[in-house]
Every structure is written in structure tokens, then in C-alpha cells.
């Protein structure tokens, strides 16, 4: 989806404003929001890609004005309802329905260290022939899918060189919409700054973008 989240190359957002001695969370609710997201995600009812897409679906003005963890809460709330873990009435009313049966949490405190230690691997140990090799020239396809994609707009139609093959990973464009893992090779592709931004860019600089087989075509 060509949304406002796809920000690479925009120029009108003003200066970067680092904060000295920044806390991990700026208010207790930010920590709770962060943790709620992980704890709810532990039910494995939605993928990380689906959650990312849910955030992308926020109206653009909201996306730009909401606090970061506020966006997480908005997205996870939708996923909780969509997955059936809660109902819309429960979300709006803030209390369980009368017939709600109490569950046992998917993530209890004792399981937290193990969950964080193992993580969630997006790589797949399957033999799939790579379509491209390191050193090969490739073009990022000019596609504009209405759903989730990790091919940023600024790279589409641009030519680069495969820097390395990262191996086989699930494909976000299908995973986010429940259409299967569609595992395929991911490559780091080097695009020169001049290819991306024109002759005013530095002749030395480049951007490396991680791209799946389905995003690329041979040159």
C-alpha cells in the first residue's frame, strides 16, 4: 500500500530531534502498551507482518500525529477483535461479556525470558534455488500492491547489484494477509545514491535494501 508509512526519500518532516538521557518509556502507559502487544501476540493469532500492516492502515493524519506506542495499541486492539479473542463490545465497554470464559494467559511471567531468548524466526530451512547471485544486476519491480509490502516506493523501478544472499525467509506480502508463507530468498541489494536520487547525490554513497525474490527482476 502506498501509505504515509513508506517515508523513505521524503524531505519535509524537519530536523531529527534526539533527546538527551532518553528513558526507555516516557510514561508508564508506554511500557504497558509495549508489553501488552507482546503478551497478546503470544496467542499467535496474527503475524508480525499483519500487525505492521494494521498500523499502516491507520488514517495518515493519525499515523503522523499519534505517539508510537499509541499506534501499537490501536493496531493490537483491532487484531484482538478480528481474531475473536475479544469482541468489539468488550473493547468499547472495557469489560468482559457476561458469557466470557476466563482463559489461561498464553504468556505467563515465567515464560517471558524463554520467549525473548528464542525469538520468532522468519527464516525457513527449506531448499529453494535463489533466482539471483551476489554481484548480479537486478531491478526492483515497479509494483504497487494495495496490501502490505516491504518494497519501499523509493526503490521501485531502480537498478542495483545483489550484495549478498541472506537465505530463505517468509514473504510479508502474503503472510500479512493470511495467504501463506511463500518462502523465498532475501538479498541485500545495493543501489547507488545517484540511481535513487539523481546526479546531485554523492557519487560514493549507496543504500542497501533487503529485498525478496518476488520484488526483483533480472536486468
Amino acid at each position, binding site marked *: 500500500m502506498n501509505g504515509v508509512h513508506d*517515508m*523513505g*526519500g*521524503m*524531505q519535509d*518532516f*524537519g530536523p*531529527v*530531534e*534526539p533527546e538527551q538521557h532518553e528513558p*526507555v518509556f516516557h510514561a508508564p*502507559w508506554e*511500557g*504497558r*502498551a*509495549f*508489553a*501488552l502487544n*507482546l*503478551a497478546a501476540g503470544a496467542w499467535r493469532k496474527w503475524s508480525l507482518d499483519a500487525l*505492521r500492516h494494521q498500523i499502516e492502515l491507520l488514517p495518515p493524519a493519525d499515523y503522523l500525529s499519534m505517539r*508510537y*506506542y*499509541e499506534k501499537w*495499541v490501536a493496531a493490537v*486492539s483491532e487484531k*484482538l477483535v478480528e481474531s475473536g*479473542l475479544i469482541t468489539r463490545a468488550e473493547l*468499547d465497554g*472495557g*469489560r468482559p461479556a457476561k458469557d*466470557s470464559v476466563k*482463559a489461561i*494467559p498464553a*504468556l505467563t*511471567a515465567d515464560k*517471558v*525470558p524463554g*520467549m*525473548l*531468548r*528464542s*525469538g*520468532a*524466526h*522468519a*527464516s525457513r530451512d527449506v531448499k529453494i534455488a535463489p533466482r539471483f547471485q551476489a554481484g548480479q544486476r537486478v531491478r526492483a519491480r515497479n509494483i504497487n500492491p494495495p496490501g502490505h509490502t*516491504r*518494497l*519501499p516506493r523509493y526503490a521501485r523501478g531502480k537498478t542495483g547489484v545483489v550484495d549478498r544472499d*541472506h537465505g530463505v*525467509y517468509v514473504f510479508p506480502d502474503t503472510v500479512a494477509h493470511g495467504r501463506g508463507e511463500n518462502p523465498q530468498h532475501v538479498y541485500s541489494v545495493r543501489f547507488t545514491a545517484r540511481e535513487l536520487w539523481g546526479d546531485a*547525490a554523492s557519487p*560514493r*554513497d*549507496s*543504500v*542497501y535494501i*533487503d*529485498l525478496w525474490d518476488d520484488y526483483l527482476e533480472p536486468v
Partner: protein
Amino acid sequence: MSGHDHSHDHQAVPSDPALRVKALESLLTEKGLVDPKALDALIDTYETKVGPRNGAQVVARAWVDPSYKARLLADGTSAIAEVGYGGAQGEHMVVVENTPQVHNLIVCTLCSCYPWSVLGLPPVWYKSAPYRSRAVIDPRGILREFGLDLAEGVEVRVWDSTAELRYLVLPERPAGTEALDEAALAALVTRDAMIGTAKVCVPAGAAA
């Protein structure tokens, strides 16, 4: 939230994020979907245990041990696991090396991907529109805003974290630190140096 009422207010969901989060946590806890103690443990992990000190240890090890550095650059995930780090948002790590000729900068233009296992949770500026938008089109301008004015002859490589690979910059070891041990070196390494928006500096008097 004062319980049920029957007003015609369509703003049933509180607009204040703090109230909304509190209401959601309370609902999910009552339904047995989340354990508040698990939330406490998650928050404590990223407030007190997992942060840039992890990455700093990896960098310091690479500075003192050339064979470790070679492993780190060849297979970041395994080499970082040797130091004891990995897991959530560090499952697939790539380490890129700064040299006098090459400067690396990490960004996620599409969302906020960041190597939690070695740097903790990202700062607000990393997730902000100004950084995400301009890091790829004007990295030198961004670096100048951070006080780093690179010579024209230096090659800038920006890494856009569009997939599940997570990137860590191995900064240059500053001159004058030859006598420092691994722990003292780790103390010099900053979060920003491992994102690529700073170099590692030696505070006056710290060098041996």
C-alpha cells in the same frame, strides 16, 4: 473509566492513551488473556536488562579479538550469541564495519525495525518521520545534525531494514585506546555509534 453508562457519547473509547491502555489491560487481564506479571517482566527486561550495553560488549570484543571480529562480520547472529545475546528482534543479525573509508548508517524507512537484542528498544528519534524519511536521501545531512561532518571522500552506506535482518554498526576503535581493556572499551561505545549516527569518542582523561 467509571463503569457502564448510557450516554449517547460515541467516544466510548477514551482518547487519552494512558486511559485506553489501562482499559485494555484491565479487559485482557479479566478475560485471562494476559498476565500482568508477564507485562511487568517484559517492561523490566527492556528497562534494566537489555540495552546498548549488550551491543557495546560485542563491539569491544571485536576490537580486542581479530578472530572474533572476523566471525562477527561473517555471521553476526552466531558471533553475537557467543557473547550471550540473541532472540527477539535479534534473530538474524548483520554487522557492518566502519572504517576510515566507509561509514554505515542503519534505518528502517517503513516502520521501526531495530536490533533489540543488542541495543534494546529504539529511541523516539529513530522511529520518527524526520529520521526515517531523510536517512536514505540525505544521510550526510542527518549525520551533520548529529554533529558528524564526514569528508566527501568517505563512502556512506545506508542500510534500510526492510526485512527481518537486523543491523549493527561496528564503529571504529578510537585512537589512544591501545592500553584499555575490553570492559573499559565497552564503556566508551554508545548506542548512536552502533546505529551509525556518531563515532566513538574518548572523553578527555579516559585514554590510557
